[in-house]
Structures are given as C-alpha cells and as structure tokens.
C-alpha cells in the first residue's frame, strides 16, 4: 500500500470515528429534549400552559405547564415554582413531589414545576454535571433531567455582550439574559426568557395569587443559604414562619430582598404584583465551586470530601459533616418551609385560608426518603 492510499484510509477512518462520536453525543443531547411524565394527584382540577396566558409562547420551548389543584372550599391562592434553575435539583424535585402528592382541602394551589422549561433541555458546558437523576419510586424507576441555570442557547441566541435588564436598564453579564431569575418582570415580545417571566407575572396578576414561592439551591459557601428571602410585604409572615420552623428543629436565616438588584423573582413579584413573594434556598455542594467529582451520587447524598475540608477551614455557612446534605433533607426543608409559610399566611388571613394535606413532613421525608413519594 502506497503512502497516499494509507492516508486516505486514515482520513476515512477519522471521518467514520467522528460520525460515530457525533451520533452518540448527538443522541445524548437530543434525549435531553424528552420531557418528563408526571402523575398529578387526584386534587388536580386543570392544567394551564404559559401560552394560555401569553399566546406568544405557543409552540415555543418556553411553554411550560401549570398544574392547578383546587379545594372544595374557597380560600386563598398560592403559586409554587420549581425549575427556575434546572441545575438546582431540590427545587424542582420538591415541586414534582408536591404536584404528585398534594391534596387541597381549601383554597387553590398552582404548581409550575419547570419554570424555565428550555433550560431543562441542556446542561452547563465544562461543569461535568450529570444529565439525569433517577428515582426508583412506587411508580417504577423514573429519571428526571438535570438541566442548566439558563435557557438553552439553541432557543435563545446570541447573547449580547452586556445584558440590559428591562425595564430598569441594569447591566449584567451577557449570558444572564437567559437567566429567568434575572428577567422579571419580563417583556412582551422580548427574548424567550423575558417572555416566560412576563407570562408568570401576568399569571400572578390575573389569578390574584396571594403567596408565591420560588424554590432554589445554592452552594454551602454562599452566604444566602438555608434561607428564606422575603420582601417588605412578606417579611412578617416569613419571620413568624422562621421562628416556628426553628421550634421544629429547622433553622432558616431570614434574608431581605434587595431593592436595587433588579430582575429577581421576589423583587419584581413585589413591585409588579400584589402577591407575597418568598424565595427559598437550600445548601447543595453540587452548586459550589469547591466540589470534587460531580455526579448523580453527589446530587443524592450531598457528600463531598472537599466540602469536609472546607468545613474544617470554616468557610461554609451551613453545618457540614459525613452525613452530607442529602436530597431528601433538601427537599424536606423546602416542603417544610412552604407548608409552614402557607400555615402562617392562612392564620393571618382567615378569609384566604389555604389548607393542604397529603404531603410528607420533614421527619417523614428523612425516614422514608424521596422515593416513597414518586
């Protein structure tokens, strides 16, 4: 075989190899577009798509679904958002757990489990994040996508050099233009992310939602962690709830919603709607910069050797030991806080009571695990 023929063989082989790699990785990428199947509880009254609120979202990757659960007695209304940041698993798993288990006796509960639906269809490059978390529950083994903090660039591209928040004109890094939690109050006929934010704000306004939650996770070295973030309107309810949660053995720090940082859910829900805005944060090492191996196990256990070292150095804002911060604990904290805040709200607003049941308390989740409720 002469040198030229040999080179042609090598080139052909390289092309075939590249095609195989493209096929494997392409398939893997494509699978991220397959949406989850949920099994809502028997309290479900109806579902609403964001495009029903803002028709401009029809047939777009931002057209997420809101599940409406209504009690027999009239009462207050609450909206619970998971998946604002689909790389924060306890936020969306808590919302999934609620929608599959909740029973509403009085009032109305709306659950938007995948607030930024597009951001579930990819994950962050160079972060080594797992694509899925599997839960082997009563309905069989199910896998849920672990996405990205921001909208998929396939759905919203290109990013500007500098993101100018609408309407404040606040300047942020260009890729924040795809961050739902920097895009409120949103903009009609704006970017996809702004359009989603606009639809959520409009839903809160149209439905006259009394109290709204946004569920998140953050790194253990971040100061705002294991926290309830409240605005001027919601701070009294949040304070009362934090005191009562502490009596139940769950410590939450109380954080104010900053007036001068625009685009955040709680900030703009306060200023553009009449709802009581609440944002909840749990601590999760997979969000942090100090983490080691980043895999599904880390999501599940929250145990990382590097964070044990960080704890010894005193740089963490939460207690941390070999028990880690498991998913069931993080989901349990979200569920406990949502339940308590709704309870306090109902106590203070007797004509707008929201009475829910069917969801586990913190101890039950710690004992039986998340799997028992899926």
């Amino acid at each position, binding site marked *: 075989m002469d040198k030229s023929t040999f080179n042609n063989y090598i080139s052909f082989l390289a092309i075939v190899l590249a095609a195989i790699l493209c096929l494997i990785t392409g398939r893997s990428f494509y699978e991220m577009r397959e949406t989850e199947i949920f099994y809502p509880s028997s309290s479900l009254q109806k579902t609403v798509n964001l495009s029903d609120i803002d028709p401009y979202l029809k047939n777009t990757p931002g057209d997420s679904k809101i599940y409406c659960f209504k009690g027999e007695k009239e009462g207050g209304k609450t909206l619970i958002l998971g998946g604002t940041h689909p790389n924060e698993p306890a936020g969306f798993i808590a919302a999934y757990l609620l929608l599959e288990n909740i029973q509403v006796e009085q009032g109305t509960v709306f659950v938007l489990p995948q607030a930024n639906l597009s951001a579930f269809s990819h994950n962050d490059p160079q972060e080594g994040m797992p694509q899925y978390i599997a839960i082997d529950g009563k309905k069989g083994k199910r896998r849920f996508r672990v996405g990205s903090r921001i909208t998929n660039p396939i759905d919203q591209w290109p990013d500007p050099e500098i993101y100018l928040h609408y309407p404040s004109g606040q300047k942020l890094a260009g890729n924040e233009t795809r961050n739902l939690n920097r895009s409120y109050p949103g903009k009609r006929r704006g970017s996809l992310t702004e359009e989603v934010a606009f639809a959520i704000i409009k839903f809160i306004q149209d439905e006259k939602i009394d109290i709204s939650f946004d569920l998140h996770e953050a790194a253990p070295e971040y100061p705002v962690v294991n926290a309830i*973030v*409240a605005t001027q309107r919601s701070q*009294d309810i949040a*304070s009362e709830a934090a005191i009562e949660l502490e009596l139940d053995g769950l*410590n939450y*720090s*109380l954080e104010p919603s*900053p007036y001068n940082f625009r685009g955040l859910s709680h900030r703009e829900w306060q200023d553009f709607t009449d709802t009581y805005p609440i944002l909840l944060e749990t601590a999760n090492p997979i969000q942090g910069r100090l983490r080691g191996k980043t895999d599904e196990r880390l999501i599940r256990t929250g145990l990382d050797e590097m964070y044990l070292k960080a704890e010894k150095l005193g740089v963490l804002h939460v207690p941390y030991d070999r028990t880690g911060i498991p998913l069931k604990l993080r989901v349990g904290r979200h569920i406990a806080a949502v339940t308590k805040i709704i309870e306090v709200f109902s106590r203070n607003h007797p004509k707008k009571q929201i009475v829910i049941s069917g969801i586990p308390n913190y101890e039950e989740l710690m004992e039986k695990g998340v799997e028992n409720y899926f």
Partner: protein
Amino acid sequence: MKRFFQFYVLLIIILLVSLNGFSQSSDTSGFVAQEPVLISSSGQSADVLMLKVLSEKAGLKYIFDKTASPHLVDSVKSVILVTGGSTKGLGAANIDKEAEYKRVEQIIARARKDKLPVITFHVGGKSRRGTLSDYFNQLAAENADYLVVVAGGDEDRFFSDIAKAKNIPIELPEKIASIQEILTRIYQKESK
C-alpha cells in the same frame, strides 16, 4: 481516705462554680427595661424582623426602624439592637458597612447620653457569624447593658467572652421562640 473525699468534694464545687461562670457572666434575673423601645439592626440582617414579631407577641410598645437614625432614641426609654451582618441587607438598605457601623455607634452614644439601656440580641446562630457579622457583633455586644444570644451563635464563646470581660449579663436561650419570654420578663409584661 477522708482527705481524698474532701479533695474530690472541693474539686466538684470548683467545677460547678466555673461551669456556672461559663453559662452566665453575671446575674441576669433582675434586669428590667422600660417601654417604648426602639428596635433597630446592627448590620442589617433580616433577623431584626424576628425580634419585631416576638415583641409584637410579647405586647411591647415599640418603634421599629432597621435603619433608625440616632434622634429616634430620644423618643424611647430603651434600645434593642439585633446584631448580624448581611450583604443583601446592607444592599437593601442602600448603606455600606462603614456607614452602618457609624449609625450603630451613634445610636449607642445617644442611648448612653440619655442613660437608656441597650439590649443586644443575636438570633441568627452560626450563619450570623464570620467576618462581616462579627464586625457588627463586636460593637453591639461590647456596648450592651444586657446580651441575649441564641445558643448556636456562641459555640466559640465569642459573646460569652465579651460578656465576661465587660461584666455584661448574658442569656443563652436554646431557641429563638424563648426570646418572647425574655422580653416579657425584661419589660415586665403579662405572659401571653
């Protein structure tokens, strides 16, 4: 044998006395203050809101202002400072940490001038410790007439040591909810 027995009894007494010294720097039973009270922050953490809720439950007459200016001290008969730093809180209040420090110093100075007691509360536990928080904690604790620290915030005896050095009475309740009883006692209110 008798000598050994006497030695051990003496040892136990010394141990008990010193343990008591660790838990409280000086007597906390007789401290009282009068209403109305100004409730303000030292470091702009939202923990001050919990004191507001507990004061409400305890039936206190209070003026609540997270960023109270010193002249407000003239309208009250005691001052409560809730200490703990928060970058979000400072941002929300649109104030930098140096200006906040100066504001707290001025409130304390005004209270001293008017001979009003300053009661400092730390309720945020471990999450309200660290460089930023301790910048404010030190100031509010050292200048208090009475200190109440929810136990998690004093694991390293930061507050207890200040209380001991400055001879300030200190209480270390386990839970934030216990503060309602403490307020009821200090302000001599009927228990609810």
